[in-house]
């Protein structure tokens, strides 16, 4: 017998009517994701259903939604992982709903911008000299750089639920991602947006962000490190090894003796349709 899953979706159209739940029956295939089920509904049962998705591989951050009371990336979660034959899908909490499962993420991006989420250097970069980064210096920020800005951490955060002006786990984790980077010299500038009411100190370490993040970013850890660095900076104790510049890179120079070689060419440009003819 064909296995079926019952999908209840919260519908809302910002037309003044209250949200309502609509139920659909979807044939469940092996490996089917929540996003597949929504696609099936849109293509076969109800074309008016609105949800957001793009990459379908857990990398664009578009498809976060609230499934049976927990936030997931719809494309990254198979129906069998939920362990129920009834899915109740609602839009992500802590964001205003635009339509059905589509929420307005502008507040996420606005808060992200305020923490200056990019490398800040005190001098003009020298394009010919790379900045040296040791493996442990890469490790210091690597996992925080996996953020895809899906908003799941914000949707789970109890402080965000009561205080919409709180910077939130996504922005704070990114503040640490850049501040922890040995190439960055912008911590003093970033402090203005962090060390203020509704800034980093309103994190009370509930840890919901880290538990829910589908990319393993661990925002709660980043935030605690940020707090420690800020307190240390009051006493002049926040220090990073000063980034050094490597030797000038010459793009024409031959590789040094003993360096690994690229594999032999098996296709020549003439073999391909890209050769110009």
């Amino acid at each position, binding site marked *: 017998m064909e296995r079926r899953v019952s999908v209840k979706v919260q519908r809302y159209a910002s037309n003044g009517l209250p949200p309502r739940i609509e139920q659909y029956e979807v044939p469940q295939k092996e490996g089917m994701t929540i996003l597949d089920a929504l696609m099936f509904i849109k293509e076969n049962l109800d074309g008016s259903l609105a949800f957001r998705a793009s990459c379908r591989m857990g990398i664009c951050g578009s498809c976060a939604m609230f499934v049976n009371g927990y936030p997931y990336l719809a494309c990254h979660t198979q129906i069998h992982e939920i362990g129920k034959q009834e899915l109740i899908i609602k839009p992500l909490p802590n964001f205003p709903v635009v339509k059905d499962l589509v929420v307005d993420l502008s507040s996420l991006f606005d808060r992200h911008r305020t923490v200056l989420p990019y490398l800040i250097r005190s001098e003009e970069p020298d394009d010919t000299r790379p900045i040296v980064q040791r493996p442990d210096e890469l490790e210091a920020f690597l996992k925080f750089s996996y953020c895809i800005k899906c908003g799941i951490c914000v949707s789970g955060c109890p402080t965000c639920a*009561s*205080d919409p*002006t*709180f910077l939130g786990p996504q922005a704070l984790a990114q503040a640490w991602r850049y501040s922890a980077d040995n190439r960055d010299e912008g911590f003093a500038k970033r402090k203005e947006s962090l*060390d*203020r009411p509704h800034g980093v*100190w*309103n994190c*009370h370490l509930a840890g919901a962000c880290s538990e829910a993040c589908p990319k393993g970013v661990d925002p709660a850890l980043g935030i605690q490190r940020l*707090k420690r660095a800020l307190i240390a900076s009051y006493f002049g104790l926040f220090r990073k090894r000063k980034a050094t510049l490597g030797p000038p890179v010459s793009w024409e120079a031959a590789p040094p003796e003993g360096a690994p070689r690229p594999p032999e060419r098996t296709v020549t440009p003439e073999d391909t349709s890209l050769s110009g003819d």
Partner: protein
Amino acid sequence: MKEGLGWFFQLFTGLFLVALLGVHMLGMHMDTLLPRFGMGYKDPLVFQEVLKRGHAPLFVAFYVVFLGLALYHGFYGLRAVLMEVWASSRTLSSINMLVWSLGLFLFFLGTAVSVGFFLV
């Protein structure tokens, strides 16, 4: 004041509270435990004992420090709760005023009682 210093002081007072609250709980409310190990004293809540402590300078100092740290810790926590419930830049100064005035009032009241009792 820097926002983070207030938070740091709450953390700091929390640490002190572990010690002070520990002494308080062990001495006053778990009074059957210490005498078993030959420490503390029996019946700490009997009026005569309360009188004795109220006239001991070390205890009075303990009361005032404990009161100050606990009030700071609790009221800074209350401030955090209130500023998240009424999140707006306009309400923050009213919350600060409320929390500081209530905290200072209770601190002076408590200090006046313990120091006043010590002096009579």
